[in-house]
């Protein structure tokens, strides 16, 4: 069992999720 798995997953999801949202923002600005 990996210790503190929830913290690790939360950090990676928030970082890569945040970067993905920025990519979507760039695509939308490119389209407008």
């Amino acid at each position, binding site marked *: 069992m990996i210790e503190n798995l929830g*913290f*690790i997953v939360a*950090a990676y999801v*928030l*970082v890569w999720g*945040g970067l993905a949202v*920025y990519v979507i923002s760039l695509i939308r600005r*490119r389209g407008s």
Partner: protein
Amino acid sequence: MIETTTAPFPTIRVRPWLGVLATLSSVIATFMALVWAPTDAVQGDVYRILYVHVPLAWLAYLAFFVVFIASLGWLLTKRPWFDALAVASAEVGVLFTGMFIVAGSIWAKPTWGVWWTWDPRLVTTAVMFMMYVGYLLLRSLSTDFSRRATRAAVLGVIAVIDIPIVHLSVLWMNSLHQLPTVMRAGGSPSIDAAMGTTLLVSVVAFTLVYLAFLAERMSIELDRQRRMFEARA
């Protein structure tokens, strides 16, 4: 006198490749960070968060240093290309700073027992974040292109002073935050080889992500400038 002909961004042809390379290297870096790298003897597995926290912090420093160089470029030459570079790098830098503060906070809870503490490194980082959020807000205060670019450039030159303060704050003051492990004066990196390799791959991945974001954001800004100059003509 403002040079109104905005030449195409030189790396425009490599933009799709940058995106592909950034995605592939990020997948490899994430696999190495979560699976391949060994568990830390002291911190356990939670230290794996540092494989995103540390590269994002270094790339944020780089992004704000690029803002400084581009701001000087605008002030000295008045070429709009420099203003586009400055705003693009500032925006990505703010994004990366927000991300590494969040990742650091999530790492701190199981390690230090708190989400946030008024530690010199954390406070100076928060100040850096607010300064560059202010830089982006300042840009929305004027619709006059030249005035806006000049005001922003002055702040972009001044704000860079916070980068060495953030990095050296752990040496200058008593700090809960750990001392530099890799970028330290007078010594080689004190890090396990497999962990060092994983960190290096993560730094390469986030550098490619930074370059891909910078190229795309800059291209959008140059298009905006071109439309503005065409409307004026």
